[in-house]
C-alpha cells in the first residue's frame, strides 16, 4: 500500500479541530475507514472529501452520525439515478432526432 496517501488521524483532528473520539465514532459507524500501521491510525487521502462533508453536516446542521449515514446512502442513490437518467436522456435523443 502507498503509505504516502495515508494521513495520521491525529493530524486530521488538529487540522479540523475535532476530537479523536469523533473519528472513532465515524469508524464505528462505517462512515470512514481507518488503517492501523504499527499501532498508529491513518485515514486514506481519498476519504478526505467525505470526512469534510461529515464535519460540515455535523457542525453546521447539527446532524447526528446516524442521520449522516442515511444522507450519504440517499446521496449515493441519487448519484446513481442521475447517471441512469443521463444515459436514458442520451438514448432518448436518438429517437427524438428521427
Amino acid at each position, binding site marked *: 500500500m502507498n503509505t504516502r496517501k495515508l494521513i495520521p488521524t491525529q493530524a486530521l483532528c488538529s487540522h*479540523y*479541530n475535532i476530537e479523536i473520539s469523533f473519528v472513532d465514532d465515524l469508524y464505528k459507524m462505517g462512515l470512514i475507514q481507518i488503517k492501523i500501521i504499527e499501532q498508529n491510525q491513518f485515514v486514506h487521502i481519498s476519504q478526505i472529501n467525505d470526512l469534510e462533508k461529515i464535519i*460540515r453536516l455535523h*457542525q*453546521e*446542521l447539527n446532524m447526528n452520525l446516524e442521520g449522516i449515514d442515511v444522507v450519504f446512502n440517499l446521496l449515493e442513490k441519487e448519484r446513481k439515478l442521475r447517471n441512469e437518467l443521463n444515459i436514458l436522456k*442520451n438514448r432518448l435523443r436518438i429517437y427524438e432526432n428521427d
Partner: protein
Amino acid sequence: MSFIDYYKILDVSKTSTEKEIKIAYRKLARKYHPDLNPENKEAEIKFKEINEANEVLSDPENRKKYDKYGKDWKHEEEYEKAKQQQKSRQSGQKDFSNEEYSDFFESMFGGGSSFGQGRSPQFKGQDYNSELYLDLKEVYITQQQVLTVNGKKIRLTIPAGVENGQVIRIKGKGGLGINGGPDGDLYIKFIIENHTLFKRDGNNLYLDVDLDLYISILGGEMIIDTLNGKVKLSIKPETSNESKGKLKGKGFPIYKKEGEFGDLIITYRIKLPTNLSEREIELFKELQKIGAK
C-alpha cells in the same frame, strides 16, 4: 444593488423571536445545504442567501440596524448614515472574504460571515461548476484544450469517448481554501452536440444506410463514410428493408480504454426506384407475372 428582505428569505415575521429565527434558519439550511444538493446551483445561491439573512437577523445589533435602515436604504440621507456606521464598524472588524455576500449585505454591514468560524477553521474552498460544449467528432479522439476559469488557464486532456452529460473533476482548480484549507475542485460537465448522421448510444453508433432496390435483391457492395474513414459493405442478396448489420469495432471509442471501440450498427433502408421508364415498367410487369406463377 437591490433591497433584500431577509425576513422573507427566512420566511419569518418581523416580530419573530431569536429562537424562531434560529429554527427557521436551521430548517432552511437543512434543505439547501450544498452538501445535500450536489450540482444544484439554485440551492447553492439559496444557501448563501439564507446564511446572509441569518448573519443579520440572528445578531441583535445587526437586526436593529437592518430594521431601522433596511426598508429605506434607497433614501440617500439614511443610506449615507448607514454607510458611515458601516465604516466605523469595519475599522474594528476582521477582514472576511466578501465573495459569498450580496452587495446589499456589504453596504449595510461591511465584511462577510463568521459562519462556522472558530469551530472548523480549515476547509476546502468552494467547488466550481462549468459546462464545456463539444462536437461528437471532437470527442472521437483524445484532445487537449486550454480553458480559462476565473482568469486562470487550465490545460485539460479530454479522453476520447467522453459521454454527453458526463462530469469530470479537476482537483484544486476551484475556489481558494478557507483559512488555509485546500482549494476547491472544478467540475466540468461535457455537453456533446451531434451534427453527424450517426446516432450514439454509449459506445455504439447507429447509422441508416439507403440501399438501392437492385442491390438489396441481388446483393453487392457499397462504400460508406464512418467517423474513422471509409468502409466497404458487402450486402447479401435478398436483404430486406430495415434489416441490420453490425460492424464490430467501428463504433465510438470506449472512454479511457485506448484502442477499444464499440460497434457500428447499420440499418438498411431500401429506396424504391421512381420515375420508371416504359421499359422498366414492362420488365417489372414481367417479373410480376413470373412471381405469380
